[in-house]
Each structure stands twice: as C-alpha cells, then as structure tokens.
C-alpha cells in the first residue's frame, strides 16, 4: 500500500501543510482531518507544500475543493507550493492554475499572505 504522510506547522500567521507520498481516495481522509483541525482553530491562511508528494488522484484534489471556499470566505486561501512537474500536470490538466495560486517556493506563498 502506498503510504502518505501529512504534517502541519505554523509560519507566522500562516499554516503550512507538508504532504508526502501518495494522496488518493484511501489517504485523503488524513488530509481532511488536518483541514478540519485548521477550521476548528480558525486558521484560514493555508499553504500546502507539495515538495515530497509523489502522486495525487482526483479524490486528493477533491479535498482542496471542499475547503477552499470556506477559507476564502474568511479572508484566507489555500495556496500551493513546491510542486513536482508530474503533480503539477494533473492540476494543470484540470485547470486548477486558474482557480488556485501556485508558487515555486513555500516562502513566496507565505509572503503573499503577509502582504
């Protein structure tokens, strides 16, 4: 079974989620838990660092879609950074770059929130 890891850390007022491994229908609930925790703590500014993510399925994409609206309604957002090319291609195919902000480096995304 492909494994998946998720880690949450704070960089100033921004929450950074590190995702690692394979994000699919089986592992998506783990990521959902993290987002629920953020909502409970009223943390709406989120950067997802994809540096170590190897694969994402449509169910994995669904997680971001489920939460982005709430974040945006509360003056926050979900921004993506450090994405590998193969993962970016999947986002790109679906037209995500029109809906989400993608950054090469995590600090750029964090910077964007702080401005």
């Amino acid at each position: 079974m492909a494994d998946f890891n998720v880690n949450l850390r704070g960089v100033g007022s921004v929450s950074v989620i590190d995702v690692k491994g394979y994000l699919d229908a089986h592992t998506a609930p783990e990521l959902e838990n993290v987002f629920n925790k953020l909502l409970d703590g009223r943390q709406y500014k989120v950067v997802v660092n994809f540096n170590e993510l190897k694969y994402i399925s449509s169910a994995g994409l669904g997680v971001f879609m489920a939460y982005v609206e709430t974040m945006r309604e509360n003056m926050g957002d979900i921004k993506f950074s450090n994405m590998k090319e193969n993962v970016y291609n999947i986002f790109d195919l679906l037209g995500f770059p029109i809906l989400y902000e993608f950054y090469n480096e995590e600090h750029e995304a964090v910077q964007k929130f702080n401005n």
Partner: protein
Amino acid sequence: MNNQIKNFARSRGLENAILVSILLFLFNLIFPLHDSTLLAIINEILVFLTVFFLFNYIHQFLKSKVDSPLTLVLNGGILAALIFFIVSISKAILGSPDNNKGVGFFNSIFSILLIFVFIGSVDYIFSTFRELFFLRQKKDPKMFFNTMLVFFTLSYFSNIFLLFDSTFDYARDAFYVVTIVLIFLNSLRVAWIAFLPKKQKYYLLIISVVLSILYGLNFAMIGDNNVMRKIIFTFSPGLHTLINLVMIYGSIYLGIIFFTTLFHLPTAEAFDSKSEEVSSLMDLTKLITQVFDFKELAQTITSITTRVCNSDSAWLITKRGKNIELSSVHKIGFVDADRITNNLLGTGENDYDTIEIIQYDLMNQNPKGNEQIYKSIAIAPLKVHGKINGYLFAARYRENDFDQDEKKSVQAFADYAAVALENAKLIEESIEKERLEKELDVARDIQKKILPNTIPCSDELKISALFVPAFEVGGDYYDFFELGNDCLGFVVADVSGKGISSAFIMAEVKGVFESLSKIISNPRELLIKVNDTLKGSLDKKNFVTAIYGIINKKSGILNFARAGHTPILLCSGEKIDRLQPAGVGLALDYSPGFASSLKEMEIQLKNNDIILCYSDGITEAKNNKEEDFGYERLESLVLKNRDKNLDSISNEIMKELSLFSRNHSQHDDITLVIFKWNKNN
C-alpha cells in the same frame, strides 16, 4: 441362525401370538381334562409358547412408552388390581374349590378365557418390569435379566417333571428359590427413579407402596387354596408357578422402588434444579444458532437466569465503548435496573473482570420509603476475546448467598450471552458487506445502461470505442449524438470518485449532455451551459472532466472544447500532437471565470488522421514501481500502429497497458474512443 429366529419371532409377533392362542384354545376345548401325561405335556408347551409370544409382542409395543416410567408402573398396577379383583370375585361367587367339579362345555370356555386374561396380564406386568429394568442403565445388563428369564423357564417346566416323579419337587423348589434371588438382584436396578421430577417422586412413593402390597396380596391369594388357584393349577401347573413368581417380582420390585424413592426425596430439589440448568443450557445453545435478534435472546437469558439461579430478578446490559445499554430486564423495572447498574458500575471501567457477588444491602444503607432492597447481586461479565461487552446481573432479596454452583451457572449464561452478542455483531457486519456489494452491482448496472449500445460509423468517419470498468465502479462516460447537417457530436467524460454516487452523477451528466446537445451547437457554449446546470447538484469534492466535440462528416472539420479532461491526441502522418485547449473541469468553478478560461479549438482533418479521446485510467495506470503509463507510451503506440484498423489499435493499447500494469490492480475505469478520418478533402 439365532438372529433369524429372533427376527422371525419379532416381525411376526402378533401373528405368532394369535396362532398359538387359537391352538391352545382349541386344544383345551377338545381335551378339557388333561388326564394323560402326554396331553398335559402338550398343554404345558402350548401355554408356554402363548406366554412367550405374547410377551414378545407386548414388549415391542411397550418400547414406545419408555419415556414415562410412571405410566409403566401404573399400567402394571392396574392389571395387578384386575387380577386381585378376579380372584376376589371368583372366591366370593364360586365359593370353596371343592364344590365345583363340573367340566361342562361352558365351564371350559370360561376357564380358558380366564386363563387368557391371566396370561395377558402377567405378560404385560412382566414386560413393564423389563422396560423399567433397562431404563437409564449405563452398562448393558442383559445378562442378568436373561439369566433370570432362564430360571423363570426352568421353574415353569420343572412342574412337568413332577408328572413323572412326585419326589422331584426339590428341583422345582430349588429353581423357584434361585429365581426369587435373581428377582431380588434384578430389582435393585432402579436408576431411573433419580431422574424423575420431584412431583413424580412423591407420586411414585405413594403408588409403589400401594402396589407392593397389592402384588403381595395377589401372591398370597393365588398361592392359597381357593377356586381360582384350582382352575389355574389344573389348567397348567407351570402357569401357576409363573403367576406366583411375577407377583413376587412385583411385590419385591415395588418395595425396592418405594424405599429408593424415599431415599431420593431429600435430593429431589437439587436434582431438579441441576437438570433444569442442563436443559436450559441446551435450549440456549439451540437459540444462539437460530435467533439473530440479540434482544430476543437477551430476554430468554434473563428469564432463564432468574429461574435456574434462584434469583428474584435478572437483567443484562451491553457496553459499546463507554455507552451502556439495558438489553433486557426480568422481574425488575428498567429504571431500577438502570439505577442499580449505575451504582454498581460507577464510573470505573472493567471493574468486574470475573463473576462477583455484591452484598448490595450493605452498599445501600438508605432505601427510599419502603422499597425492598436486594440482599445480594451477582455480576458476571460478557467476555469475548478478553474484551468485556456487557454484564449479566442476577439479584436476590433473600438472605442466603449465591452458592458456588449458582455462581457458575450465572457465569455460564453470561458466556452464552457474550457469544450471542458477538454473533449478532458478525451477522450485522456481513449484512452490511452484502449491502455494499449489491450497491456496487447497481452502480455497474447503471454504468452499463448509460453507455451507448451502437457506435455510429460511416465511410468517411470510422469510430471504435472501448470501455473497461474497474472493480470499484468509476464514473467514465462516452456518448455520440447525431446532430443533423452531417454533424456528429461526441462526449468523453470522467466523474471523479467511485461507487454508486459517481454512477448517479454520471447518469445526470448523460441527461444534461443529451438534452443540451440538441439545443446548443457550439462545444464551448455547451460545456459552459453544462457547468451551470450541474451547479448545486454535485458535492464540493466532486467534479467532472469532459471533452465535447462536433465533427462535420462532409468537411472533416473538428470543433471541440475541453473541460479539464485529458488532451485529445491527433495523429496526422508521422506526427502526433496533444490538443489541450484551456479549460477548467466541470463543477470546479461556477464563477464567470469558467467561461472566460474555456477555449475552443478547430481542426481540419486530413485523410487517415487519427483522433484519440481517452480517460486518465490509461495515462495514470501504474506499474509496480508506481510509475505512470503516461502520454509518451500511449503516443508511440498510436504512431506505431497507425496503419492498422481502429479495433487493432485499441487492442494493441490495451495489451501494452495490461503488460505494463500486470502487478497492479486496475483502479480506474478505462475509456478509449478512436476516430479515423478517411476522405481526401
């Protein structure tokens, strides 16, 4: 040989008995007086055969009554009373034996009939003793009984020897005494008494003493010098001996029964409760395999616990995590049971790992009003695999504590409840699993019905479509629409997610495309409209990727728009291109941004151009190194096989794909739609 005789005697029991009886009857009509030795011997043998065959028949017939020994005793007793009655009446009416010397025809018939009554009664009584003898015997006591039978026979025939030599009577007496000793020994086999319920034991005590006396009286009267003795004795001395012996047997046997029953009385109650416990446990075992409703079983368990463990109330609780639920109560209210349970269990977890007896009245010093307080309560855990799933309570008002045996049986019932609870859980799970599998079947069915049965085809435009469902139903969909004006519309779509929900979304998407394709003839506008229509009907997490295109079959112009779907591959000559006009997946964005980002593409097809539409089930198929099949492999396959017909191209692609992912299960639907343009423009 021996068995053959046995079988013959048994299978024809009734016929044999009747036959010999008739013979005996006729013989005695013809020769009312047995004045010669030969006649006497023949008569003795005939009587013996009658007795023997009748006994054989009756003993077969009695086999069915073995379950109620008391009935056997009573039946024998009634016949004994009949004999007593006949002897007494004959004594009163006929007077002293010396008066009656007539051997008239009617006298003969009368005495023969009387003899038959005696033979029947004695046979029946003896049979009942035989059945009782074999009842509840652990070892096979046949030997003892058969020895006794042999001595009965010897005693019978010893009378014949007397006819030759009257000094021979010591032999008769010897046989007689030995028979009585054997009777006494055999009478000691009365194990069946122990298994009678208490009530029946009391009953047996009374009838056994009465019957013992009755048999004794019969023996005395028949042995005495009266008219009945004379009739029997003149008819057959052997029979007289036999009747005497059976009466002695009855007297001894019932006497022994009386004393045995008397000694069994003190333990009768304990024996009753033990046997009830055993039979309750057996009933429960049966119930567990038959009843799937745990509540129903819990009812039975609490009521049996109350009865068998001599408690005044019982109740059963089940535990799920920290939630405690009263499953059933017996002879106690829900409120009381709940209150006592809370008192006993408190907040502590796993308090009672093994059965414990609580002195409840000591715990609870201040009863409200005149409420009756339980003196002791037994708590037994419902334990399976070391995990406690609940408790069984048995409570008692009385002073005396639960003894060791009662504790054991409360725990036994708790164990049964634990197993039943586990069973119920497993059954629930398997029903749930079955339900899910059915759901999957429904989803597959929907998917099958949604896809087109026939693929449109013409000389200019050849089409091949292939669909391979994954085990978990996905949401791939393709369709073709004849639009008139030589235009063919087509859609290839993929609903995110799996299972029945995506199958339903797919059905909805099909409906939307089918109706909108008739109204809107521009692919981009159509996809925008589809996106609007889907608003509100999809979950936030779900989306649909799609390509909608229109091919003009006259001009070979392809117009299409792409909403997040995998790019179209266009193979033209030795060149292959990914056509990926911008476009966001359907249901991802309902803002005007969707429309403004969606681009349309127009292509003029050339002769032998191949167009490939497919789902990500192909490009994202994995091998055991978790690598994607990817676009390059797909593209080079198309290039390599471009001159073959369309079905061969799909076959080659599928072959390569299954080789690539042979150690990996297919986790997404695969759709492959290929067009080929065959016309020089």
